[in-house]
Structure formats: C-alpha cells, structure tokens
C-alpha cells in the first residue's frame, strides 16, 4: 500500500472527529472525538515516518500520546467537578465560565 492511502485515511478520521466536536454536546463525547483527531494525527506522523524511513515521526507520535493522556486526565477531572456541582453535563450549559 502506498503511503497516500494512509494519509487519506487519517484525513477521513480527522474530519469525522472534527464533525463530532462540532456537533455533539456531551463533553465526554467531545473528549472522545478529540482523541479521534489526535489519533488521526498520529497515523499521519507514522505514515510519514515510514515514508522517510526515519524514526523521528514515531517519537513524535509517542509524545502526542502523552499529551493526549494529560488532556484526558484534566478533561475528565473537569467533568467530574461539573457533576459534583450539579451542573448539567452539557457544553451549552457551561459556556459562561461562571459558577
């Protein structure tokens, strides 16, 4: 398979994730769609890494996974804090940054 297939596939996954971020309103699902977009980026990075025969892209992908893990912990902490305050779990309800 040529690398083009992988890159186009990663474009598809990224677009699906972006559509999810724009349309869904549950912050949990929005975080999942962010994971989709990050994974699409990872796929492109690893595809290019294979294209050049160079391992740097794989290290980049590893760092992206680390950043994704951090984002997940902080995001889920925010969602749990929202739930504790009895705020409805809906991004339209928390659009004002006020308690």
């Amino acid at each position, binding site marked *: 398979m*040529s*690398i083009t297939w992988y890159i186009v*596939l990663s*474009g598809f996954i990224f677009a699906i994730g972006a559509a999810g971020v724009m349309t869904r309103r549950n912050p949990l699902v929005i975080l999942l769609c962010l994971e989709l977009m990050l994974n699409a980026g990872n796929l492109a990075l690893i595809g290019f890494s294979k294209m050049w025969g160079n*391992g740097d892209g794989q290290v980049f992908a590893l760092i992206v996974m680390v*950043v994704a893990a951090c984002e997940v912990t902080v995001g889920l902490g925010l969602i749990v804090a929202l739930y504790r305050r009895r705020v409805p779990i809906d991004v339209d309800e928390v659009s004002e940054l006020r308690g």
Partner: protein
Amino acid sequence: LRELLFFLAAFGAIGGALAVVLVRNPFFSVLSLVIHLFALATLFLLLNAEFIAAAQIVVYAGAVMVLYVFVVAYIGGVKEAPPLRGESSAIGTTGVIFAAGLVVIVTIAVVGTSLTAIDTEGAKVGIGFGSPGAIGELLLRKFLVPFEAASILLTVAAVGAVVLARKRRGLPDEEGGRPSVPGTPAGASPAPESELLGGPEAEPKPLPAGTAEAPGDPVPDRGA
C-alpha cells in the same frame, strides 16, 4: 495480504470513528473508540511501528479507556438533549458540511502534493526500525528535552486532575465556603481515585437491598 489487512483495519477505524460520533449513549461511544484504537494499532503494525502499536493498545485501549469507562459509570447515562431543535440541527448540518470540506481539502493536498515518495510504499527500513530499542535510543539521545518535558507535563496533569476532582467537603449549591478542606489535607488528595472507584459502587448498593433479592446480602457479611 497487506492490502487485505489494510482495508480491514481501515474499515474498522472509520466505522469505529463514525460510531463514536453517531451513537447516542456515551458508554457505547467509548466502546467503539476501543474498536477504533485496535484497528489503528493494526495500521501502525503495517507501517513498521511495532512499539507504537503496543503502546497504543496498552496505554490507550487499556488505561485511558478504563478511565473513560469509570467516569461514564460515575456520571451515569446522561441523556443528551434531543439533538434536533431548530438551531442545533443547523449546527449539525454546518458541522457535517465543514467536515466534508475538510476531507476534500486534505485529499486534494495529499494527492496534489509534490512529495514523490508518497506514492511508494516508503523507504526500505532495517529490521529494528520501530523496535523499542530504536525508539528508546532516539528518545534518550536526540529527543531528550521533549522526553523530559513530557514527563513534567504528565506530573502537572496528574496533580491538576487531583486538584480538580477533589472532594470539597460540605459543598454547597453555590460557591460559598469550602469549610473543612484545610482540616484534612492528607485525606483530600487520594480522594478522587477512591471515589471514581467507589462512586458507582456505592450508589447502587441501597437499591438491591431495598428492592428485591438481597435482604441478607450485606448485613450478615458484616456480622460474620
């Protein structure tokens, strides 16, 4: 065989991604993301990235998804508000249009690129290309500073999550006081994890005892 495997994994990845976006229940979204991650790990294997594929399965499908499942169970099955009121259906249409435009743009950019090697199968790589040894050597020699920065970032994120999800004792409806937090500094910090674990478990306990089958389930255990 590689082509067959690629198309299987690609369909799995796209189907999983679509299911994440389209399914209403967040729990099933998480499960379809697990399917997506496994398909993506297969693709990574096809691209000679063995270590990344293993890390993907262990870290993402193992650890991060378990975190998601716990939070979904803790929050409970939140029904998303009905999606098709006037303005939000317009938002949905706009989102889909933007996504389709994004696909078209990316495809044009990839197909029309002047990278000549993109139509090949990639460079010939040695046998230890994506192995843990090669990745580790790159991380510790060429990319030492990003490696350390990533570790600092992980520490900061862990501390931040603990602070965010900490149980504030006597939390009123509005923010007023949080009275007894300074009194229990030692008990405050490990609270979120034990609550993530204990929250969904502690909630359903009164229900079975009250409803149906177990009048004697928790109590004689304590007695004995």
